[in-house]
Each structure stands twice: as structure tokens, then as C-alpha cells.
């Protein structure tokens, strides 16, 4: 799928490597997770109410539309989370049981 966001400047930054649903994504240091993912991909998650894909809305931590999940099941608000090397992100929440959490 075509990326959703396009970089207009500040492209000389250090590369940070992430994984999105098992695929490698090259982000740049200083990116928010949302910008990193949407510069490579068309959406962040699927609406659990059946109306398709979602890619965030407000970018200021108010709408909660930009949630993604780590492999451990931790939910991240991607517009206000900075990227870090080795982050392993899923566009669907993993099934996690209480014993997994402990």
C-alpha cells in the first residue's frame, strides 16, 4: 500500500530500524511512531467497529485514533511516542492473557 505521509524536509537524520507486522521499516531519529509508520504504510490499525482502516486524526493526543500495539501487548499512542531502534509494532492488538503479562 502507498505511504500516507510524505517527508518535505529534515531527511538527513540517522536511520532507526523498526518492524511493522513483521516487515522492516526504516524510520528517522526524531520521528514520532505515527510519522515513521505512515511514511512507509497507508494506515495504523483497523477500526474494531468495522468501518475500515484508520491512520490517526488529531496528532495532538486528543482523539486516540492512532493506537498501535507492541508485541508484548502494550498499547501506544503513536502520535506522541518517539521511535526507538528495534521497536516491534503490530497494527492489531495481540491476544494476551493475564499469565503472559506476569
Amino acid at each position, binding site marked *: 500500500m502507498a505511504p500516507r*505521509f510524505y517527508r518535505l524536509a529534515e531527511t538527513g537524520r540517522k536511520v532507526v530500524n523498526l518492524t511493522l507486522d513483521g516487515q522492516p521499516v526504516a524510520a528517522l531519529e526524531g520521528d514520532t511512531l505515527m510519522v515513521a509508520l505512515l511514511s512507509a504504510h497507508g494506515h495504523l490499525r483497523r477500526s474494531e467497529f468495522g*468501518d475500515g*482502516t484508520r491512520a490517526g*486524526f488529531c496528532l495532538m493526543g486528543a482523539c486516540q485514533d492512532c493506537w498501535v500495539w507492541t508485541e508484548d501487548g502494550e498499547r501506544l499512542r503513536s502520535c506522541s511516542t518517539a521511535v526507538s531502534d528495534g521497536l516491534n509494532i503490530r497494527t492489531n492488538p495481540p491476544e494476551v492473557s493475564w499469565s503472559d503479562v506476569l
Partner: protein
Amino acid sequence: MVGRALNTLKVVIIGAGPAGVRAAQTLVAAGVRPTVIDEGRRAGGQIYRRQPDNFTRSLETLYGTEASRAQGIHDTFDGLVDQIDYLPETLVWNISDGRVFAVSEKRETTIEYDALIICSGATDRLMPVKGWDMAGVYSLGGSQVALKSQAVSIGQRVIFMGTGPLLYLVASQYLKAGAGVVAVLDTSSFIKRVVAAPKLMSAPDALINGLKFTLALKAAGVPVLTGIRPLEITGDVESGVSGLIFETGAGEHREIKGDAVAMGYHLRPETQLADLTRCEFAFDEKSHLWYPKVDEDGRATTANVYLAGDGARILGARAAEVSGKLAALACLKDAGAPVLDNEIMALRQDMACWKRFATGLREAFPWPAEQAAKLPDETVVCRCEAITAGELRRTVNAMGAKEANRAKAFSRVGMGRCQGRYCALAGAEIIAAAAGIPVSEAGRLRGQAPVKPLPICIEDDEAAAAISTVRELTK
């Protein structure tokens, strides 16, 4: 709090945008050491939001004509950091019994206060349109954040739609940054701007900047249309936005293509925290907004609570600086500190000027309340849970819910994870139109704690120790 030595006075400021920064500066100058709690990673608020440290664009590139104001706020705050208790990346999620409940990095803190200055700012005000729940539709403010703080465009061919000064500002910023701007579609008619011109002259430089943005867009060949009505954002639920169908001022239907829509209808105040202090609200007939009641200097109806910036009244960033100072002076005065009446009078005069300018903006770029009644039943109103206008109307017509909180309980519009920030105002218009009552009678959604979703794994020290012990044992 009267009679307390100023250096022992516990003042908590929530928000480090222009209002919060000026409030903190005013308190520090009087010998108070305030606590400043801010959800942002760095101070500046949304308007003067800073880019990450390793970005190199100039202040002029980021903030245009407001570069020196942005620098003024940033430098002031950086100079205060040693004289305040600063809690960045910290969310205040509840206020109760003279205490602020905050969470940061999954850790909880509770802070007692003698006085509270809430500078919670604003978010975009939205009117739904069919298809606005698709990927690729962003709020205008969000589109600006993408460019300002991350140097990205929300698409290759962006359609700007809505009304208000931000519409022209963000579109022109995108154009200047080299992004593709397909069109600027304004729901307000041009004649309203002409009629509002005398009031807009209260801030001539701001008026001239606005005209310059429009001229720059037109000079670049970007269609700028006024008096339009959006009918549908087109696209595919999998791949997202592909265009917009709208009605022109002359009543023709037109479709334009684009891969992103930036939309917004000016701003709405963030008032949940003020609401949790149980202060009174009043409906403003002119803007169709509920505002917390404040006196001339920002005192809320709850004792020792002060409100400043766009969270108190949508008056813009420059007024936020003035109201931040005023609220801090009111707080100092109430604490028995010597405050010069002349200083307060001068600030009140500044505020009167900004109020006049804001009235001009409101009249030039009115909230299109009449669109609510015309939204097709299948239009999603609540983006969080994909609840349609038809479902909301059904709760009014079939279940008799004519009050916003009751309609919320039945329909879930306003109950999703944004907690009504993006649907409540339009939802109230839909309820009022369906019930045939004024929107003021539909009421407003009550603020609820937590004001934003919290991670379920918030830990205190004991719990953290217990979990690590269990982890060790189960290895």
C-alpha cells in the same frame, strides 16, 4: 490561601502553552515556585510546538510571522525551569478535593494545591461529513502539527476544507513547504468577511497576514472557494481518501480528487479539567460553545481556580499570553500579595481588543450549525465507535432523549475514547435539530475522569516490586 507567605504558596499550572508560560513567569517574578504540568514533551503548547532537537529548520520556517513570539515563549520558559517544578510528558487525568492526579510514564503522582491555574488550550472543532472516518482525513490542527513538528505532509494532494483562519494559514504553510495543495474550500461566504472587517481591524497585522495567505494560495493557482458545503469525502474503507464532493456557493455539485483531507471549523476549548473542579458553565449563543464562567481576570466560580488561554475563551495565542498573566495576577491578589491595579487595567484593555478581534473572526468564519440537520443518516458522527447520525437521531425520535448526556447513554455518541472531543458539539446540533429545540437545551456532555484513557498497567512502587518478584519466581 490569604496570608500565606508567597514562597510557600502551592500553585499548580496545567499546560505550558503561551498562557501557562506567562502565568508561570508572573508567579515566579512574585516569589512563588509554581508546579507546571504539561502533556507535551517540551513547552510551547500546540501553537508554538517545538520540533525535535535534531531538526534544523529555522524559527521563521516553523512559525512564519510569529517566529519572534514563539522564541519569546520558548526563551521565557527555558529561563524559568530552575525556578519552577516542571513535569513534562505528564497527563492530568483528574482533579478532586484540592488535589491534581497526574500520570507520567505509567507512574502516578498526586499534587496538592492552594491555587490552580488551568491553561488546557483547545482542539479543532469538527462538523462530521460522510466519509470523514476514512484513513487520510485529519484535523486542520493535526495537519499543521505534521508539518511543523515532523516536516511531513499528510498526503501528496491535500484538500483543505472547513472554515476559520487556520484553514488559510495551514494551507499556505503546506504550499510554502512544497506540499501539494489541491484546493481550499471554505464553508463561510466571502461577504461575511467584508462585514466583519471593522472588528478584524482590532488586530491589523493579523488581518493583513490572513489576506497574504489567501493571495499566496491564489497566486500559486490553488482554487480558493467560499460558501461551499461538503457533501461527501470519497474513497475506499481499505485504502482511504480519494476525493471530496461538495456543493458550490451557486448550488452546483462538484468533485475534486486528492489523497488527504485536512478539515476543521476553528477551535473548541478543552474544558474537562475545569469541569472536574465543578465550576459553572454558560452557553455562548454566538459561537454555540459552552464556556466555563470566568470573571474579567480569569477566576472560575470554584474558589482558587483560575482559567486562562483558549481553554477559557477561544481568543488566540496572543490573547492567551495576556490572560495567563492576568490569571496569575488574580491568583496573587487573592493570596494577599501586592498587585498593581494599573497593570491589571492595562492587561484587561489588551484582552478587550483581542475579544473584539475574536468576535470578528467568529462572524467572518461562522460555525456551520445548519449542516448538522442536513447530514445523511449514514454519516458517522462518532469516529471512535462508528456511530451514525441516524442512530443518534433514533435515540431522540424513538427513545425521547433530548438531552446530550441521555442521548450519549443510549447511542454511545460521546462515550468513545476521545470522550466527545470530536463529536459532542456536532452531536448536540444533531440532537437539537431532531428534537426541534435550541442547541442550548440539548446541553453539554459532563466531563468525566479520567479525561483521557490511562494505561491499565499504571504502577506504584509496591505493585512494581510485587510484579518483579512474581516474574522472578515464575522464571
